[in-house]
């Protein structure tokens, strides 16, 4: 028996593309058919569940009638302000909205290397002060709102922004400390990193909110929110430190020697020669750490703070809407997903923007 010759394949056209890419060989044909069948089954159902069959009005009866065979976005429609702003007084919610928008705008500005100047630190201080004032009020005709009532997106954004931006410089310092020639700096940095990495974040948060108030001097009025911000910063810095250290170790000794032979001091060498190379090398794992910082903010619910996921749980507590948690979680997951996707795309852009020299070097070698 002789194998039949393969049918002549037309190069162009849809049919040609399909044949080449989806039915190239028996295994790929089987995979195509199986995956196709799975998609044919799943896509219409998913569309029906999320869109065509879904109820978008906050109509409880209509939602119950669906029997969970389609989404009830009515729950999100009715509760979105509770999910986004937590227990913040309803009629004052323009304040967290503006405050959050400010911090987000500042995050976006900070993303541009062109703006990495000294004044951006002052800008951050101003934005954080305005954020705290808008949220807390108590002056200029704004009513006072206790930090215990802050929640939802503003809390998530604040924790993320502070923990990310403050842990970066601290992480860099710790990494430099671990590689320092000064025994004291090395011991301190290593001990710190190993201690913090050996403790779960939840424990750190518990200690920050319940133990610290007992041992802090009375005269030091650190709010619960400030303690949590500091705790998260200190925690994430330990992880970032190890990421940065990996980048530092990847650089050849000749870079240090060349800088030394030119008379550059320790900090000049780090700032001009070593860190610009090391940090670009570690952008991918750096962003990994920053993404988990963002996710970790949801753990603050264990110390009774209602971030985005926490305030969703508040919303789900309403007996009228009990049972629509899937819609609620999808809504919140969507916010997390879009933010993470944006950060991840940004990191790729940043790698190209700052790592152009590395790419050109690779191309020249090839």
């Amino acid at each position, binding site marked *: 028996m002789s194998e039949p010759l393969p049918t002549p394949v037309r190069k162009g056209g849809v049919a040609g593309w399909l044949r080449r890419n989806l039915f190239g060989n028996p295994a790929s044909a089987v995979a195509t058919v199986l995956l196709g069948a799975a998609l044919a089954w799943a896509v219409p159902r998913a569309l029906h569940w999320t869109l065509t069959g879904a109820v978008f009005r906050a109509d409880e009866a209509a939602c119950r009638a669906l029997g969970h065979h389609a989404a009830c976005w009515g729950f999100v429609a009715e509760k979105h302000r509770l999910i986004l702003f937590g227990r913040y007084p309803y009629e004052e919610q323009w304040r967290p909205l503006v405050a959050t928008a400010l911090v987000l705008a500042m995050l976006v500005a900070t993303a541009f290397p062109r703006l990495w100047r000294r004044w951006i630190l002052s800008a951050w201080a101003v934005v954080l002060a305005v954020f705290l004032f808008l949220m807390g009020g108590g002056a200029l005709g704004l009513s006072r709102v206790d930090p215990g009532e802050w929640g939802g997106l503003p809390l998530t954004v604040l924790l993320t922004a502070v923990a990310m931006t403050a842990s970066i410089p601290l992480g860099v310092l710790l990494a430099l400390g671990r590689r320092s020639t000064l025994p004291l700096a090395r011991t301190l940095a290593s001990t710190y990193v190993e201690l913090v990495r050996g403790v779960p974040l939840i424990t750190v948060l518990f200690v920050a909110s319940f133990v610290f108030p007992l041992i802090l001097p009375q005269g030091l009025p650190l709010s619960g929110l400030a303690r949590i911000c500091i705790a998260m910063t200190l925690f994430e810095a330990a992880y970032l430190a190890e990421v940065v250290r990996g980048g530092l170790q990847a650089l050849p000794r000749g870079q240090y020697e060349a800088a030394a032979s030119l*008379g550059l001091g320790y900090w000049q060498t780090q700032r001009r020669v070593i860190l610009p190379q090391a940090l*670009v090398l570690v952008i991918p794992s750096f962003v990994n750490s920053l993404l988990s910082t963002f996710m970790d903010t949801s753990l603050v619910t264990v110390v009774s703070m209602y971030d985005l996921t926490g305030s969703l749980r508040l919303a789900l507590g309403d007996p009228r809407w009990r049972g629509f948690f899937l819609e609620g979680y999808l809504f919140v997951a969507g916010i997390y997903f879009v933010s993470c996707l944006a950060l991840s795309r940004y990191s790729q852009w940043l790698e190209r923007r700052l790592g152009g020299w*590395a790419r050109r070097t690779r191309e020249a070698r090839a």
Partner: protein
Amino acid sequence: MSVQTEPIIRLRGVSKSFGRFQALRDVDLDVGRGERIVICGPSGSGKSTLIRCINRLEEHDAGTVVVDGVELTEDLRAIDKIRREVGMVFQQFNLFPHLTVLENVALAPHTVLKLPLAEAEKRAMQQLERVRIGDQAAKHPGQLSGGQQQRVAIARALCMQPRIMLFDEPTSALDPEMVKEVLDVMLELARAGMTMVVVTHEMGFARSVAERVLFMDAGRIVEQAPPAEFFAAPKSERTRDFLAKVLPR
């Protein structure tokens, strides 16, 4: 004036060990102002360690190193002062890959000497022209050939206007056809009267430029003589063996 006759580099009884390996054993060396010295010897003989002790990239264990009247000790200010006066060129170039060629050369004048950026770049451009690579100023080091990179490295060291230039096997990592362009630049530097200490196996360079050739083996200076004498009538057995290996027949 007595200052003129005083050596610009003076090593007395310098020793250095790496763990149990002794790289330098009780080395004495005087280098006069404007003098050009070539150091050769088999690998592991301590020649790189010797010149790296002159700008304290290596810390010597014993003896004294005095450069331009300043003794190198743990005093950081002395080390800073010496490093500004001593330029160094490495076997692997060690250019900063994330900076352009111009930025590489202007970095130290700007950050160490605190020159305004425009002035530092002007000075850098002059040095790049001097090593005939001004047209590559905007590129990154990775885009240049080895010979071009090494010339940039020389310009970078010269931009600090050093009194002494140290070369640590500057042509050993180069393809043969690029060796000449680097040696030519070094030759011009020698004609301009720079004090140079060069570790190299380029015996042609030693013959035409050096006033003294040193042969090192096992951490000691075995023999030193003007090149004519050194190549024609080497005194020690070890030197003859070595020369037989490196000199073209």
